[in-house]
């Protein structure tokens, strides 16, 4: 084996190191960006507490409508909860996130400000204030994406190391944010809570409330913890499915309440209404003049939604959580009906006439998206007539198409970069063909060939990819800040992606290198 002494190290290792490090650097950027986009809700959802309650079906937190009654019900059970409203909007013309918080929120975010300051005006994040060139006492014009605007005074500047997102946002009190988001007082975007996981499972379910009664000719009304009617129907032996929460059950005959009880619905429950409990409380039930039918295009009633009815001068005359059909008692005239479901806000003007029903057919979000996607240019004149709901829908559709195209670009880039890895490996074996032939002529064993040809490539690949990915880890936030890649003024570098994308990229790139190596090696080393 004296010939081993004359053999130097394989050629091309430096080229391999540089090339694989660069490919890994690019791959590191690609996968980190992909993970950052996937985790982009971190920019808005701060996740205080250990549980975040939002509408499961909503694509973004900005379309989530969570009943405030959940917060009240949980609070009744001794759970620490913080409701929050998140609104897209502009502050002095700059796109920003407007966060509606409570006194509890101020405490959780460790913000050194009082609720009175929040009630008087707005708190502005430090970086945003610098960008807008404003300070305490400055005027701020806020316009939400639902075309609601307010003028406020800046009451304080917020700086947070714990939640850097707040440095780029506008903080207002909950009711201002609800106004900007066109939400009723009993709906918020999200509720943060501190509770056990088993408790979380309780909230995510519907429960059956069984009613057993011998009474006849009475009405059953069920109110949630915020005194909103959720059920109003003739009393009978029945079973109703309701989400988790505290409810008040009332039995009345249209003018007199004869029975009431409270029920905490955290398991299937049955209540027995056997005889009138009280007879001295009266309520007034206005006889409905019309019924509002809210249906999907195929005629199916909409299960659960908020119905807001506004007179043409903008005054709210009704706002209720509703199921299917809603009775209304309104003087004849034109009214604007706003139906909000977790996935859709639909606004339409209808004429109400006593005795005549109002039917509202919702255009589901998916239908709109499909229509927009297919006929975007020709559909637009009709889309604009849907205003004000067309704005959020257009935004969401653009974001969905953008994210879809981005996923496509990332997938394609991964394929192309892997092709680059194949090229690098082929280069290595091509550059060392003389050495391989030399080993073959000297009848070197498989182990010797592996030690001299294959293993150096493996070591080089492992170290070069590690180097490239480490550089990507260091450089990614710097480049993102340098290029000022930000969504609603919040830089993407705030998103914490952790080590997962780098570990995944490391495994994938080295697996591809190894598999390619085996394939190319077979063609070069295995050839006689």
């Amino acid at each position: 084996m004296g010939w081993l002494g004359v053999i130097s190290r394989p050629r091309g290792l430096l080229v391999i190191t540089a090339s694989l490090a660069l490919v890994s650097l690019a791959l590191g950027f690609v996968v980190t960006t992909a993970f950052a986009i996937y985790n982009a809700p971190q920019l808005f959802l701060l996740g205080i507490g250990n549980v975040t309650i939002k509408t499961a079906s909503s694509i973004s937190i900005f379309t989530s409508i969570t009943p405030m009654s959940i917060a009240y019900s949980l609070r009744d059970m001794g759970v620490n909860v913080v409701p929050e409203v998140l609104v897209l909007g502009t502050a002095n013309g700059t796109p920003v996130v407007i966060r509606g918080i409570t006194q509890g929120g101020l405490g959780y975010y460790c913000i050194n400000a009082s609720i009175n300051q929040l009630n008087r005006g707005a708190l502005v994040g430090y970086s945003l204030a610098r960008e807008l060139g404003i300070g305490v006492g400055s005027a701020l014009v806020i316009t939400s994406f639902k075309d609601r605007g307010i003028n406020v005074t800046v009451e304080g500047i917020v700086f947070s190391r714990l939640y850097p997102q707040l440095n780029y946002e506008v903080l207002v009190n909950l009711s201002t944010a609800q106004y900007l988001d066109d939400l009723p007082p009993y709906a918020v975007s999200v509720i943060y809570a501190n509770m056990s996981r088993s408790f979380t499972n309780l909230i995510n379910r519907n429960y059956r409330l069984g009613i057993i009664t011998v009474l006849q000719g009475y009405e059953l009304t069920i109110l949630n913890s915020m005194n909103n009617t959720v059920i109003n129907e003739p009393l009978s032996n029945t079973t109703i499915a309701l989400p988790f929460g505290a409810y008040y059950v009332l039995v009345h005959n249209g003018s007199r309440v004869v029975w009431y009880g409270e029920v905490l619905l955290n398991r299937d429950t049955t209540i027995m209404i056997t005889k009138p409990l009280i007879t001295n409380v009266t309520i007034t039930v206005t006889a409905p003049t019309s019924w509002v039918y809210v249906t999907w295009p195929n005629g199916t009633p909409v299960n659960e939604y908020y119905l807001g009815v506004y007179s043409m001068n903008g005054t709210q005359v009704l706002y209720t959580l509703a199921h299917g059909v809603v009775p209304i008692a309104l003087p004849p005239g034109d009214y604007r009906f706003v139906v909000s479901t977790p996935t859709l806000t639909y606004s339409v003007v209808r004429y109400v006439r006593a005795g005549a029903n109002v039917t509202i057919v919702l255009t589901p979000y998916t239908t709109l998206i499909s229509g927009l996607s297919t006929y975007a240019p020709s559909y637009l004149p009709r889309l604009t007539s849907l205003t004000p709901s067309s704005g959020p829908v257009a935004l969401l559709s653009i974001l969905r198409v953008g994210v879809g195209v981005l996923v496509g670009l990332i997938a394609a880039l991964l394929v192309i970069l892997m092709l680059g890895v194949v090229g690098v490996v082929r280069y290595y074996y091509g550059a060392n063909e003389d050495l391989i032939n030399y080993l073959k002529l000297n009848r070197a064993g498989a182990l010797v060939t592996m030690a001299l040809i294959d293993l150096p490539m493996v070591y080089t690949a492992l170290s070069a990819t590690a180097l490239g990915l480490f550089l990507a880890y260091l450089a990614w936030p710097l480049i993102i800040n340098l290029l000022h890649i930000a969504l609603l003024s919040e830089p993407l570098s705030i998103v914490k992606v952790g080590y997962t994308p780098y570990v995944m990229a490391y495994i994938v790139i080295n697996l591809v290198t190894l598999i390619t190596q085996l394939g190319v090696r077979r063609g070069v080393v295995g050839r006689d």
Partner: protein
Amino acid sequence: MRELNSLRLLIINAAVPIMVLSIYRALSGVFMGYVVGLVPEVGYYIRPIVINAVSFMNNIMYFIAVSSVIASIVASVFIINGLVRGWRDDLRAVYNLYRSRAGVFIYVITVLLLSSLYSYVIGVSISVSLALIVLKTLSSLRVLPLVSYSINVVGTALAVLPLLAIMAVTYVIVGILGVVRRDLTP
């Protein structure tokens, strides 16, 4: 060349950045085609937010595409530099054929320019096909909510032309420098 492998590697290496840029141009073209028709029609109050979201998506795509292009161009330089080293015997044979150093340089430049040109044709073709496959797959999986889309092949091919020029110039410079530096001509 000693064998076809070398030429194939040259073409693949130059094709990688061209593919990256053309796939970016093709896909961002689909996105912008959708956006351009929609943005002027949305309400004035939401337009800054929509433009912000569009600009964010564009910046992200641009960032990952450009970083990949730069990384692959630099990697190509390393590869071509390494490949030139193995051309000694071929270049001697060429010198024997032409009996002039200029002939050798013309030969090297021609091979590198042709490699770049092939890379361009192959890169754009593969990218457009890949873009179509990706779009079809993602729209079938409903990740991309587009039912109809079109890829501007001519626009993409034209947009990548400057990169072809960059690749060709890079190849020629690195190739000539490699030949001169290592004194590969007799």
